[in-house]
Structure formats: structure tokens, C-alpha cells
């Protein structure tokens, strides 16, 4: 009896001490995996400058972020796509703030000899018209398509900007993050993928997009000058006018320190 009741007591006590609050103010940020690394670093610096504030950052994707903000499950959403009329219809109070620009880089394994593709070729690869690297100027070998899951903002943007709304070949491997695509492409010689500019660095090769005999590589300069054809804005979203803490965080990201972080993570600062 003493053993069992002591055990019960211990279990209850343990759960009890978790319940006590420390009174910190909490800011919940969630959404696009593209913006995730920027938001994570911004959160760290923001908390360093604002003691007594907890910022929790979570991925989940753009749609999830907008949904979470609309449902009140997060305070600030991250989105790598435009907020659509549908979203506003569901959550009329949404306020949208552009915080960075991003290009979508088409990436291949470093061992791949292909260094540039036209947008038509990329579209043909992803809709299954081309199945072998030999057909698009490479040295042969089956193309392994790597894409994003169906609720990704990056995929949605890619579908509009590159696929022109068309469908994908069904054999495309689906990854639920930019990092997942980068990792698979870096490990798989025949793979092709698309990721935000910040993920086009290590272990993979970004191919240039060629149009009218000029090749534009996905670089910060090319995205800023809008020469690189596949680029977009990245947003933070709040439900209603941002309150004190929300607006302080958004302000931080738009300020000099935040924009420097944007650049460090491989995205394009707005100013």
C-alpha cells in the first residue's frame, strides 16, 4: 500500500509541477518551411533583446500557417504564397506583411552535367514528357522527380509559375519540406528538385533558367532585379491588426537586424 500510494502521489506531483506558469508572454509563429530558418533565427535574436518573451517557431507549411492564425492556434503565420481570396473569405481579419523576396531554384545533383534548362524543359520534366536526362541535354540516366507535398506554398507557387497550372507526373517523390527536397537531391544522382533560394546551397547544384539564349542563375541579385523568372514574396500573416508583441516581432524582421538575417539565410532582403 505505501509503495503504490507513494507512486501515485509522485506521478500526480510530477504532473502538477508542469502546470505552474512562469508568466512569460508567448508568441507562437508557424507556417511555411521556406521561412522557417529565418523566423527561427529572428526569434532567437528577438528573445535575446526582449527578456520575458517566449517565441515558439513551428513549420507545417503555408496553408497550415494561415489556417493556424485564422483559428487562433498561432499568433503569426508564415506564408510562401499569396494569401488567396478563399483565405480572406474564411478569415476576413487576415493582415499580410511582405518580409522578404525569394527565388525558386531548380536543383540537381552536383554530379549532373546539366547546368541550365528552359522553363519549358523544367515543365516537361515535371509533367513526365521527359523521363531521361539525355532528352534535355544531359548525359543520360533516368530522371528522379522530387517535389513537395500537396499543401506546400512552394509547390503551389511552382505549379503556377512553372507548370502553368498543369499536373505533375504521378511518380514524383513527395517531400514535406525544402530541406527534404535538398537532402534527397544531394543523395540521388538522377534527381531534380525545386527549393527556395536559401536551400540551393550545399550538396546540390542550382541550374540556370535559360530564355532567349541567356541563362539566368538563381542569385540574390537576379531575384532582386526580377531578371530571374521564378521569384515571389514571402509573408508574415496576423489575424486582425497585429497587437503589441506581434507587431514588435514583424517590425524586428523588417528592421535592419531582421533584414540582415534574411540575407544571411540566403533570401533577398526587401531593403
Amino acid at each position: 500500500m505505501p509503495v503504490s500510494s507513494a507512486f501515485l502521489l509522485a506521478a500526480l506531483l510530477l504532473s502538477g509541477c508542469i502546470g505552474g506558469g512562469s508568466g512569460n508572454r508567448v508568441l507562437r509563429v508557424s507556417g511555411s518551411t521556406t521561412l522557417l530558418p529565418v523566423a527561427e533565427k529572428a526569434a532567437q535574436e528577438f528573445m535575446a533583446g526582449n527578456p520575458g518573451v517566449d517565441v515558439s517557431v513551428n513549420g507545417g507549411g503555408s496553408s497550415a500557417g494561415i489556417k493556424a492564425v485564422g483559428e487562433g492556434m498561432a499568433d503569426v503565420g508564415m506564408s510562401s504564397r499569396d494569401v488567396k481570396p478563399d483565405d480572406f473569405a474564411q478569415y476576413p481579419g487576415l493582415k499580410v506583411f511582405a518580409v522578404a523576396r525569394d527565388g525558386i531554384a531548380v536543383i540537381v545533383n552536383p554530379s549532373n552535367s546539366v547546368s541550365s534548362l528552359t522553363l519549358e524543359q523544367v515543365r516537361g520534366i515535371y509533367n513526365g514528357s521527359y523521363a531521361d536526362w539525355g532528352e534535355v541535354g544531359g548525359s543520360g540516366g533516368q530522371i528522379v522527380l522530387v517535389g513537395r507535398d500537396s499543401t506546400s506554398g512552394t509547390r503551389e507557387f511552382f505549379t503556377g509559375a512553372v507548370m502553368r497550372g498543369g499536373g505533375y507526373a504521378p511518380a514524383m517523390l513527395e517531400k514535406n519540406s525544402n530541406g527534404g527536397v535538398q537532402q534527397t537531391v544531394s543523395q540521388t544522382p538522377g534527381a531534380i528538385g525545386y527549393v527556395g533560394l536559401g536551400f540551393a546551397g550545399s550538396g546540390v547544384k542550382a541550374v540556370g533558367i535559360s530564355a532567349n539564349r541567356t541563362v539566368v542563375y538563381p542569385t540574390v541579385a537576379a531575384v532582386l532585379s526580377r531578371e530571374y523568372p521564378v521569384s515571389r514574396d514571402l509573408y508574415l500573416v496576423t489575424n486582425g491588426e497585429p497587437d503589441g508583441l506581434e507587431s514588435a516581432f514583424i517590425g524586428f524582421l523588417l528592421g535592419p537586424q531582421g533584414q540582415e538575417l534574411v540575407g544571411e539565410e540566403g533570401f533577398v532582403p526587401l531593403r
Partner: protein
Amino acid sequence: MEGARRGKRNRLLEFLVERALFASALFSAVAVAFIILFLFRESLPIFLGPGLLDFVLGAAWNPVGSPPLFGALPLVAGTALVTLGAMVFAIPLGVATAVFVSELSPKGWKPLLKLCVEILAGVPSVVYGLFGLVVLTDWIRVSFAVPTGESWLAGSVLLGVMSLPTIISVSEDAISSVLREHKEASLSLGATKWQTIWRVVLPSARSGITAAVVLGMGRAIGETMAVMMVTGNAAVIPSPITNVFSPVRTITGTLGIEMGEVAFGSMHYSALFGLAVLLFVIVLVVNSAALFLLRHRQAGAFGAGRGMVSRAKSFLSGNMVLLAGLAVVALAGMSSRALAASLLVAFALLYLLLTRLRRQWTEKIAFGAMGASFLLVACALAVIIYYVFSNGLPAITPEFLSGFPGNSGRAGGILPAIIGTVYLVAGAIAIALPLGVGAAVYLAEYSRGGRIVSVVRAGIDNLNGVPSIVFGLFGFAFLVIFLKLGVSLLAGQLTLALMVLPTIIRTSEEAIKSVPNSFREGSLALGATKWQTVWRVVLPPSVPGILTGVILGMGRAAGETAPIMFTAAVFSQRALPSSELEPVMALPYHIYLLATSVPGAAGNAYGAALVLLVLVLGMYGFTALIRAGFSGRRNW
């Protein structure tokens, strides 16, 4: 006067206690009913809109196409193929290992071998996934010269290994419980040991072994994380259907990948809940079949090998094996001639071996095969543990264990993930323990059979079979959204509590039932009330057994990813959670994200996996110690 008042108070207490215990027993049944109802409620639009048939038999899954397509057929096919592939090698390997452990292992080794199997069962799903993603898929790509290793084959290999512990331990139970007299009779008639095993032991244990296989299948069908990490998740039916190198997408993988991001209340959201209902029904049917087989084991054991009917049956089943073998060869023939030829030769050799060779030789070869099976299983365990340790140890530093993550988890430590996991597990147990022990006491001490008790038992059995991802969906839809708890520690603890409840009930009930009846009678004869007897006499000696259940539950709760990834876990956190309504980091989710979303974080992923593995296996080892320690001290 005083005595009468005390008697009255006691009667009231007895009454209240019995009601409370009954309520906790009923909880599981109510929870299962509630989960089913809630899943149905959320999936109603997809069943009412496109219709059940279009949903289940629709040939394309493309939820963001125009128009969106919600056909579950490729996903059902993916689940079926991955599970079948896993069974092709897990069944022979598992049953042979069970025979080895039960009948052939050297004296005194059996507990050690069983511990090996338990460790295999204790490795968290996400750790298998990490291994699969980093090592297995790459190995498949290079060895078979295919464009990518993320495939049906990779999923099947992982699932096979993961369902082995279930198959081995349930088969081993069935084989061990074959009556000794039967074996002795066979041996005394001059049969060799192998002939006895093949002709007497295995046929007698047949229904138990079948149940083991079916339970293993149930485990494989419901598995999420490992499968999702290695199958590529392309929603295609392999073409040709035998192409094991094709990527596939399972029902669980779809839920795992799409649930976190889907727009709440959309048709896509509803379709995902439709998938969860489908998964629930499939697993329910499979597990019910296994339970049916296990409960009717006795009948099968004595009927086997007797009379015309059973002879006809065994003839039929012999032919079934032959037909199945031919079907495998034919299927293999479609993808590769060489493979088909080698399979044919293997079958021919096996046939010769079983019928033509001298029986001493047959026995040697058969025993060799059983031993080799066990070695293979042990090797799988050793390889996985070796990889986790050798890659994880370099990451383990004091800073890693006590620091906060930085640079998306590539740098810094995992302290908040460790703490988060501890909070999740502690909370889940604090909720599940009183409910579970209450239910167990009611079932063991108070229930007198009848319809309500069978409903309660069915509830517990079914709750035990619910795939972990379904708990995750339920927790998300009900706790996070409907009750507005948000993604929070509390939502995760409640979800995990539901998941570990059946384990705690079962082990506690067994422990309580193993207390001899004479103890109860002695206490009652001295005038103690029923509750006094239970509280003072029955529960104290049951504590080690209950503790075993609790720790097993803790191990399971600590290692699971699917139930917490939509309900409680976040990617990063700078401060430790300070309230039940805050989200937390958790070790398994952290490993999953590092492995799949953060390139260049493999070292830290292995480090975190090592910490999780040590944590979980430590708990399992602790239960083994408790069992060893207390079984020696029992002297009734």
C-alpha cells in the same frame, strides 16, 4: 451505535469505489466509440459528397489538382503491397526464430533471446525511419543500380523488421504452450526432434502462429513514421505490379505528410479523415481476426491431424503452400527471369530436402536454417544499434544534452526536446495510470461477466489496435481544434494517455489476477470489506506487475511520433514550456525533422536518436530487472 455508523460509512465507500472503478473500466469503451464517431463526423463530407465507392476505389489521389481527386485506391494498394512485402520475409524469419527460441536454444539462454526480441520491439519507429532513410535507401539505390532507393522494397524491409517482434513473441507463446505429452509421444515413437517439431508442434500451434502473423500485419499496416520516411510517397500503383523498386504511398504516410498542412474543414481535410476511417476499419478487421484465432486456439490444437475433415484440410493447406509458391515464382517471373529461375531452384531444393533426404540430414539442415534465422534477426538488431551508437556518440557532449538547438538543429543541444518528452510521458502516465489501474481492478476483482464487461473488453482490445497516427488525427481534431486546447503539452499528454491505456490495463489486470485467492479469502474472513481487501491485500503485491505495465507504457509514449506531431510538438523553442497549454519540443519529432527537413543535421539526428534509444531501452531494461527481481521473491 458507533459500529453501525462506521458500517454505514463503509457501505457508502464501497459503493462509491465500485462505481468509480466501473467508470474507469468503461472509459476505454467510451473512448473507442468516441474516436470512431469523431473520425466519422469529420469525414462525413467526403462520404456524402463524392461517395464511398468513388473514394475507396478512385484511381488517383491528387488533392490539389484541378479538379481535386480523392481516390484512395493507390494508397490502399501501397499499404497492401508494403505489408505483403514485409510479410514475405517476416513470416518465415519470425516463425523460424520462434521455433529456435522455444525449442532449440541452449538451456538458460531463452530469457536472453527473449530480451533481444523485446529490444527489437522497443526501438522507436522514427529511429528505424532514420536508419532507413540514411542507410537502407542508399544501399538499395547502389546495390540494385536503381535511380532511387525510396521504394516499396525499403518500406517492406523496415516494416518486416518492425513486425518481427510481434510475430516472434506471439508464435513463441503458441509453440511453448504445446503440451509436453504430445512431444514426448512423438519422440517415443521414434520421430526425430525435427519431425516432432514439423509434424506435431507446428500443426498444434498453427492457430496461434496464424494469429501472430495477423497481429504482425496489423502492426505493419498501422505503422507511420518509418514507412513515410523511406517509401518516396508518390501516389502510384507500381507498374508492373511486382516492381518492388517503385515508390509507393501508404494510407498512414498520406496522413502523416498531409494532415499537418491541410486547410481545416476543406474537402481535403475530410478526405484525410476518410482515410483514417478506412485505416481504422482495416486494422480493426485484421486485429479481430487475430483475437478470434487466439481465443479459439485450444480447439485448433486438439483437432489438428485427426479425422477425415482435418486430413482434407491439411491436404488443402499443403496445396495452398504449393500454389502460393508458384504464384510468387510467376509474379517474380514478370519482373525478372533470373529471379524466377533461382526461386524455382530454391523451391525444388526445399522440396527435396523435406521429402527425399535422410532424416538426420533433414534435421541438421532444418536446425541450421532456424539458427540462421535467429542470427539474422539478431544481426538486424545489432546493425541498427551499431549505426545509431557509432554515428550518435560523437554528437553527445555536455552541451548537446544541456543546450538549446541553434541553426535549425544543426548546432546546439536538445535539452528542450528531452524535457518535452519527459513532460509528455509523465503527464500521459499521470492520466492513464489511475484510469488503467482502476479498470484493471474492476475487471479482475469486481466484474461478474455479462454484456457490459464484454463491451469493456472489446473496447480495450480495439483501443490497443488503433494505429498511432489515428490517435494523432483524433487528438488534433478533437483536443486541438474542437476543445480549443491548441497545439499544446496537454493535448499531447491526453493523446498519449489514450494510447498507453490498454497496455497499463492489461499488465495490471494480469498482475492483480496472479495474487492467490487465498489472500483475498483470508482478508475477507477477518472481516475486511472488499475495497479494504483490494487496497491492503491485493494491490501491494501487484505493484511490480503494474510498474512493469507503466514503464512499458512510458517507453511506448516516449518513442511515438505520430500521436504528438499534430497535437503537441513544435520544431524549435528557446525556453522550456511553462504551462500545460504551451507546445513543446519532443525527441522523436525532433529526430524526424532533423532527418527529413534539415540537410546537414544527420550527426545531431543520430545523437538525438541515441538519447531516445537509451531512454526507451533503459526503461525496457528496467522492467526486465523488476520481473527478474520480484519473480525470485515470490513464495506463494
